[in-house]
Every structure is written in structure tokens, then in C-alpha cells.
């Protein structure tokens, strides 16, 4: 299966509903941290230009805050596209973004358990 099909299947999103208004990126709290922004994820998946997304740190900057999902006037759900590309990347052997061995030095005395379980769920398989 090609990557475009894989991402569409995992996400369940119909990227062709997008009307390119850019509201998802306009409302994204992680916009400044991203090389590719939510509207670009949607467009690049639509056109099959997946590789640059798969290799971008932008995958790990999405906060899953559902702002783009809530505010998209067309119900495209861009966060689900980002999640699907991220999974297509980290589900491959050796591609975990966060490794357990890196965690101890990232902790401080207040680090909530919620932060660790969330990061592992987003960044590793």
C-alpha cells in the first residue's frame, strides 16, 4: 500500500473536503514550532507528497489539542491527518521518536505521570 493510502486509511479523513481557508493553521497553538503547518499536512497528503512530512519534526509538535478539529469549517479534522502520518512513521521498526533511556534526564521533581504516558503514546510504539 502506498503511503498516501496508508495515511488516509489510518486517519479516516477525507482530505478533499478541505477548501484551503487556512483556519486550522491560524488557530494552531504550535504554529511557530512547525516546519509544515496543519493546512500543509492536509494538502500534502491530498497530493501524495508524504515523505517530507514523515521526516519532519513537525510531527512531534502537534499538541492534539483539537483546536483545528473544532474550528475547521469543513469538518476535515487536520489533527487526525497529523496523527496518521506520525503513526506511519513511528510504527516502522527503529523509528520511535522517544526512547525510554532518554527519559530520566528529562524529568524534574514535579513531572506528572500524565506527561510521560502521553508523550510515550504520541512518540513511540
Amino acid at each position, binding site marked *: 500500500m502506498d503511503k498516501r493510502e496508508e495515511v488516509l486509511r489510518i486517519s479516516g479523513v477525507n482530505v478533499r473536503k478541505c477548501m484551503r481557508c487556512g483556519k486550522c493553521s491560524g488557530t494552531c497553538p*504550535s504554529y511557530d514550532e512547525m516546519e509544515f503547518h496543519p493546512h500543509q499536512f492536509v494538502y500534502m497528503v491530498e497530493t501524495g507528497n508524504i515523505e517530507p512530512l514523515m521526516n519532519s519534526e513537525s510531527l512531534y509538535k502537534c499538541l492534539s489539542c483539537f483546536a483545528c478539529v473544532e474550528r475547521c469549517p469543513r469538518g476535515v479534522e487536520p489533527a487526525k491527518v497529523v496523527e*496518521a502520518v506520525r503513526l506511519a512513521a513511528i510504527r516502522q521498526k527503529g523509528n520511535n521518536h522517544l526512547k525510554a533511556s532518554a527519559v530520566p534526564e528529562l524529568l524534574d521533581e514535579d513531572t*506528572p505521570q*500524565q506527561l510521560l*504516558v*502521553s508523550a510515550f*503514546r504520541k512518540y513511540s510504539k
Partner: protein
Amino acid sequence: MVYSYYPGCTLKNKAQDLDRYARLSAKALGFELEEIENWQCCGGVYPMARDEIATKLSSVRALADAKAHGRDLITLCSACHNVLKQVNNDILTDEDIRTRANNYLKLDDPYMGETKVIHFLEVLRDVVGFEALKEKVTNPLTGKKIGAYYGCLLLRPSGVMDMDNPENPKIMEDFIRAIGAEPVIYPQRNECCGGYLSLEDKEAVAKRREKIAQSAAEFEAECMVTACPLCMYNLKKNDSNIPVYYFTELLAEALGVKN
């Protein structure tokens, strides 16, 4: 009234105050939180992928346990609430997920999405009632200007969470009024705190934190309240010196049961 209760991992560790003050307040208000036996961590974030099943099973087990007891399921942590409610919606609306989850679990009584997931704030609003709560307050926080910080997970996606208007919510402001204080409405109250990015990109989260705290300060909030341990962690050490409390702590204080 007895409710099944899902505390979640952080309320047993770094966010014990969120749990403890809720239990004390519930007792004072006449309802009981009975913790589900052998609950498992929800995973902290809802798995959005349509083909994920294993990551949803801990939620389904908790939901099925509440159903077996014939009770609604109460949550406190915004993240647990979001995950459990979205997974419940999957079971209700997605036949593929429902079938595969039940194939895995082989429960005596298949789980079909029957449980109602309710956040503690919704119990205050819809069961106790904010007017009745106001009458039970013995120690009103009169004159205190409090900014409700909703963050993202309580409200969104609104079609599933169905707690309040996602862009102009009022449940926490009504709560703040009920405990005798004055709500402060500020623009950043329903924008993300930076979430799990704080493990490896502390600079990005610092930008979010200061933007939110400045927004609250600009509208003259003396403090903020939250229902989420990760929001608490990300926001509490802000340059605007605005303290952040769990909403349950202020509730217990107003009810005179904090100590």
C-alpha cells in the same frame, strides 16, 4: 448517590490534591465516589487513529465496570475525561471498533457504549446544581477574581465532549460564582497549555505558558483554576506570578472541608 470513579494515574501521584479535595467536597455535598477496582491508565491522550484498538481497551474496561455496577462514571482529570468519553463514543458509533474491542475483551456482557461519562464539574452543575452549591458554601471566596483555565481537553471536540460551548464556555465561571468568587473571562482560557510538548520542548511550552498567564493577568485575574494535572504543571511557574489551583481545592475551601 454513589458514582463509579476513575481517578487516573496522576491523581494517585503528583495530583493527589485534585483527588483528595474532590472526595472531601463530594462527601460534604452528599454523593460518593467509589473507585473502580483495578483500573488501568487511560494513556493520557485519545488515540485518534481508526485502526487503534489495544490503546483503547483500558478505557473500555473502566466503562464496562461502571456499567456492571449500573452507575455513571465520574472523572476529574481533563485528560482521562477526554479519553474515556471519546473512546465511549467510538464504541457507540463505530461498529468496527466496537466489534474488535469486544473480541479482545470477551466480557460476559459485551460492552456497547452504555455508560455515561460525567466530569465532576458536570455533577456540580447538573446534579447538585450551582444554586444549591451556593447555599452549601460556608466560606465564600468573596471578592477573589479567578480566571477559569479550560485548556483543550474538557471542551474539544465539542460534538463528543458535549460539556459546554467550546468557544464561550461558562461552566467553570458559574462554578466560580457559586463558591462566592468573581470569574475573570480572558481570551486564552480555552487555548492549549503546550501539553505533552513539555517533556522535550520546554521553550515552546514556556511561550504558551507566558501567553496564557499574561492574558489572565491583563484581565486582572488573581489566580487560575484548572482540572488538569498537565495544565497545572505547565502553567504554575509563570512570570506573571499568577498562582494556579485545582478547582477542587477552592471548592473544598468554600465548603469548609479543606482541612
